[in-house]
Every structure is written in C-alpha cells, then in structure tokens.
C-alpha cells in the first residue's frame, strides 16, 4: 500500500495540519458550556445518593438504569469534545473504540460467567 493509499484509507484530511486545527478546535466558550453540562449531570448523579431511600425502595436495577446512562453520556462527551475524537482523524477514534469495546466485551463476558450481574440486581 502506497503512502497516498494509506492516507486515503485512514481518512487523513488533505488540508494542512495547522489549518485543520483552526477549524476543528471548539472555542473556549464551548468548552465552558460542556463543563457546565458535565457538572449538572454529576449533580444529578449525586442526587441519587441524596434520595437513596426512594431508590432503595425502587431497587438496585432502577438505580443502575438511572446512573448508567448519565455515566455513559459524561464519558462520551469528554471523549468527543475535550479529547477531540469528534473532530480528529477517524483512525484515533477507531483505535480507542477498539480498546474500549474489547475491554467491555471481555469483562462483561467474564463477570456474566461468574453471575455478578444476576447477584447484583
């Protein structure tokens, strides 16, 4: 595979590097808005501890169903905007997602085989 083919394969932008950065970096105000959003979601997560009586009655399954989506949203917002995965070369995203998906699949399979989730809910 020639270097030109390789570039096409990984989706390298054709514009010069510094120009690409000027277009792809969010503004400071965008970062601040994202941080405010993350702080609000974190506050919502902590609220589940404050109302723990209600969640205790509802069951651990309800608590997990409430907390996990918030955790996943925070995770991908930080990856997408702060780590620039949303804007950067797709190869970086593929490498990171490969490691992440591999970890999730391997350890979910391992924990399921040991009945961890059945015991928890």
């Amino acid at each position, binding site marked *: 595979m020639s*270097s*030109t083919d*390789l*570039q096409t394969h*990984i989706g*390298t932008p*054709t514009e*010069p*590097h*510094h120009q690409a*950065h*000027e277009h792809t*970096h*969010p*503004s*400071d105000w965008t*970062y*601040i808005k*994202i*941080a405010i959003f*993350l*702080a609000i979601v*974190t506050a919502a*997560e*902590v609220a*589940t*501890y404050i109302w723990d009586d209600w969640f205790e009655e509802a069951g*651990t399954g309800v*608590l*997990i169903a409430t*907390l*996990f989506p*918030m*955790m996943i949203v*925070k*995770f991908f917002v*930080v*990856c997408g*905007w*702060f*780590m*620039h995965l949303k804007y950067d*070369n797709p*190869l*970086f995203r593929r*490498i*990171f997602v*490969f*490691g*992440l998906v*591999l*970890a*999730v699949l*391997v*350890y979910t399979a*391992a*924990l399921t085989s*040991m009945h*961890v989730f059945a015991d*928890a809910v």
Partner: protein
Amino acid sequence: MTDVAVETSPTLEAEEHHGTSTGISNEKLAMWVFLGSDCLLFGALISTYLLVRHRSESGPEALRDPSHVFDIPFTSVSSFVLLMSSLTMALAVGAIHRGDVRRCQAFLATTALLGATFIGGQVYEFTAFYNEGLGFTTNLFGSAFYTLTGFHGVHVSVGIMFLMSLVVMSLKGNLGPDKAETVEIFGLYWHFVDIVWILIFTIVYLIP
C-alpha cells in the same frame, strides 16, 4: 517533472507536517494506542472490584459493605474538582493552539493544582478508611478498592508531574506554539484519567 510534483503533493504536504507516511502524528497515534490498552487495565481492575466487593469474609462486619464505608459528599466534591481540571486542560490546549503561551501556562498550572487537590482528597480518604480499620489486606473489598483507586491515583500523580514539567518548560520559554501538539497529547492522557474516574465514581461509589 512538474506533473510528478503535482501528483504527489498531498502526500508530501502531509509528510511535511508530521514526517510520517500516514500524515498523522506518530506521538499522538502512540498515545491513543496507549489509552486504548489502558482501557483493558482499568477494565480488569473495575471487574475485579465488582466481582469481590460483596464477598469479604474477614475483617470487621461494618467494613465489609462498601455503602457503610464511603463518604459520598466528600468524593462528589473530589469528582467535581477532577472534572473541572479537564476543563482547564482543554482551555490550555486551546490557548497554545492560538499561540497564547501565558494563558496556556496559567491553565496548565491550574490543572496541576486541581489534580493535586484531587490527590490530596484521595490521601485523606485512604487515611480515614485506614483509621477506621480498613487496610489493604483487611478483606477482599479493601484490596480491590485500594488497588483500583490507587492505580487511578498513580495515573493522576504521573499526570501532575508531566503538567509541572510543561509549566517549567513554558517558564524557560521552551513551550511555544510549535509545541502545541505536545500539550494536546498530554491533554489526551489527562482527559482519559478523568473519564476513568467518571466510571469509578458511578460504579464504585454510587452503586451500592
């Protein structure tokens, strides 16, 4: 001759910027490969914690249940501090890309300070647990908890050392806009430490 130069110009342009056949930075690529592999390390530690946290059979009864041990309000503040350090890191990366070295320096120092505050909180938390009788070898919960949060703490501490190095580099005038990618690559590491804590805070602390 001119035709040849025109045909190969996209490749040459990319190689000129990073000196690689792919046109992307090898250093940045290496950091992403490292972060991808680190997902497996923390995945193993979190899984081990989930597996053993309710299976402690030794040590005092009160120290076998995580929900009796944790101080959630205190950890929530620590989590908020680490989350805000991600903001200051992102602002530092933005500042160096604009060529604003002084602002980048200030944000890097603030990030290091927030990271140190988080580590201070973790040391306080560990000390409080130890004084209550929860040591590393007290029970399975203690071993898994200290290993997981300790590994994360080591990552944060290494990050603080790198941040201080960058601040010293900038004070010596060695961190200009030409080193923007160095700051950006370190920023990736710091944000990764933050996303790992997002997982730990929910899975370890908030879910009983």
